[in-house]
């Protein structure tokens, strides 16, 4: 086995994974701390005959990848906080028109231009609810470069399976930290390709008529089937409609295709959970500090466990409820004012037991920060 080992930034790990997953079109606009993704793409894509374009802003970047996806390509864009805000309208379009696409947001502190070079996990709810209107969304995250790789491939697979945009939420520490990455052999991680229609030329093709399993086989722009794509509510031909039944069915389809597949979409890692009395829940780089605390305290016999979320939306309510059923305390570790903590409180039977260990000052959350919270809940004082 010829192991391909690299020493890279998280942003580069994301690029490697996207290429592994079959990406061949990238459009973007530079913004810290995501810029290395665009830079690497400009080098790597033309080497494989793919296309990179630096657009005039984030608005047109997300539009360009949607256009390219419709011609049959695997597409991605990458940005950070303010750029992600600008992408919301296009993201909504991709949800409504069911266009497979991947949007990376290497989060930075906000609101506004905030803290460009500091870590934050402040866009968790923007990822969930930034788009207007009721909708479902897939947002994934990672704490190590190997996980960045796996989860990025997963993002493409989910985007192509469910015909939907998928958001990758990384934080600055993960994006810029350098560590080892082993690039898997081809085939080691399965790569999903878009399902294309088997309807023959000349036969009426319905681009927006879901099969029984909720999937919608696509036809590439330029191929034999011509159809209309719109961000307006539409019927099975893609033609705009206000018919209440059609609108209702379409919106339900958009949310159900994700809600009904939570187990396939979501990922979570468990550490020392078998008999844990205190459960830490974390994600991204914060989970690395949380893991450090749990590992050290276990050595001293304390019953601490860690649930590391690798997907944030759809939120795995059932799983969290089940895993926390016996916990006396639940500590959510995140670099914001409790954006995932809210979801955890909704999931567990006793929300009063859920506390937040956080930092919001642009400084990476350390094991000491977490230990201080643990002392408080254990009644020891700081």
């Amino acid at each position, binding site marked *: 086995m010829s192991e391909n080992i690299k020493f890279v930034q998280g942003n580069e790990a994301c690029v490697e994974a996207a290429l592994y997953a079959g990406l061949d079109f990238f459009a973007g606009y530079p913004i810290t701390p995501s810029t290395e993704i665009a830079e690497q793409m400009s080098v790597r894509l033309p080497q494989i005959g793919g296309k990179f*374009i630096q657009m005039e802003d984030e608005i047109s970047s997300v539009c360009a990848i949607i256009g390219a996806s419709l011609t049959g390509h695997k597409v991605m864009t990458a940005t950070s906080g303010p750029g992600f805000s600008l992408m919301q309208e296009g993201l909504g379009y991709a949800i409504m028109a069911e266009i497979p696409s991947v949007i990376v947001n290497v989060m930075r502190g906000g609101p506004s231009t905030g803290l460009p070079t500091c870590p934050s996990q402040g866009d968790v709810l923007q990822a969930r609810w930034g788009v207007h209107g009721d909708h479902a969304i897939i947002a994934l995250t990672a704490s190590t470069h190997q996980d960045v790789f796996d989860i990025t491939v997963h993002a493409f697979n989910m985007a192509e399976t469910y015909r939907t945009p998928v958001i990758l939420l990384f934080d600055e520490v993960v994006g810029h930290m350098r560590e080892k990455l082993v690039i898997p052999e081809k085939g080691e991680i399965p790569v999903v390709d878009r399902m294309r229609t088997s309807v023959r030329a000349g036969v009426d093709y319905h681009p927006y008529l879901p099969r029984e399993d909720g999937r919608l086989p696509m036809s590439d*722009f330029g191929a034999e089937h011509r159809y209309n794509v719109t961000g307006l509510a539409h019927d099975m031909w893609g033609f705009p409609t206000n018919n209440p039944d059609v609108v209702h069915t379409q919106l339900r389809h958009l949310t159900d295709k994700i809600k009904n597949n939570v187990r396939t979409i979501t990922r979570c890692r468990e550490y020392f959970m078998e008999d844990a009395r205190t459960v830490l829940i974390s994600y991204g780089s914060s989970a690395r500090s949380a893991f450090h605390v749990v590992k050290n305290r276990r050595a001293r016999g304390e019953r601490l466990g860690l649930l590391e979320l690798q997907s944030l939306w759809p939120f795995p309510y059932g799983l969290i409820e089940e895993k926390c059923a016996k916990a006396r305390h639940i500590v959510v570790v995140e670099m914001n004012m409790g954006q995932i903590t809210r979801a955890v409180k909704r999931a567990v039977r006793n929300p009063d037991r859920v506390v937040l260990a956080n930092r919001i000052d642009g400084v990476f959350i350390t094991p000491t920060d977490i230990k201080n919270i643990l002392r408080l809940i254990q009644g020891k004082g700081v």
Partner: protein
Amino acid sequence: MAIRDYIRQRFFPHMWCPGCGHGIVLNSMLRAVEQLGMSKNEIVMVSGIGCSSRISGYVDFHSLHTLHGRALGFATGVKMSKPELNVIVPMGDGDALAIGGNHFIHAARRNIAMTAIVMNNRIYGMTGGQYSPLSGHGTSATTAPYTNIDHDFDVVKLAKAAGASFVARSTTYHARQVTDILKQAIVHDGFSVVEILSQCPTYFGRKNRMGGPSDMMEWFKENTTPIGSKAKAENPALIERGIFVQDEDKPEYCTEYDKVIERAMGGRS
């Protein structure tokens, strides 16, 4: 192919008001496509949001009805990922030059091969008659009750300055000229801008006492003149019609990117 075969009859009747100029643009455009003998599968029509932008639903091409002002962004992704497709982008004047103004100048600057049609009715039709960046100083609109103090763009000069390699203008009165210009714009290998003055009797006409649709078209006839005509020398207020720029030498974006691929592959392609 017969003109009606380029149309999605299932999607009719269309939503335009009686007398709207947008239908004439559709007609002229379909004639251009028919005269060029193009197949429906090689054309992608990408539009934004507005009355004008509904044009994409009515044609039996690959059609992408996008977001207000963003049509050129989507179109850039389509064209670059599949350069063999012919991309036509009809837009309203607000769509193309207010919310989409930045995309407009950058698409022109890149010189990416597509045909941008600006259907200029000098008003926001779909939202009910607010002033647009092409309404012009002294006009009336629902958001300019005391008359408009905004100055307008000259689309031709703007497109030229931004680097478009094909720039033309005509009106719905001159429907045959529109077809002729569009034919050349579509086959042009670079970014083409075709401004078409189109009447919105419902809002611009009514607000500015321009009379009915036919009066508005008469206005186009009387207030425009071919490029460089004697009439223009005598009356500088006349609006010129015709092809202002037709530069076949400026490198086209997708072709240039192919060279980037060649350089990146070090001749391995």
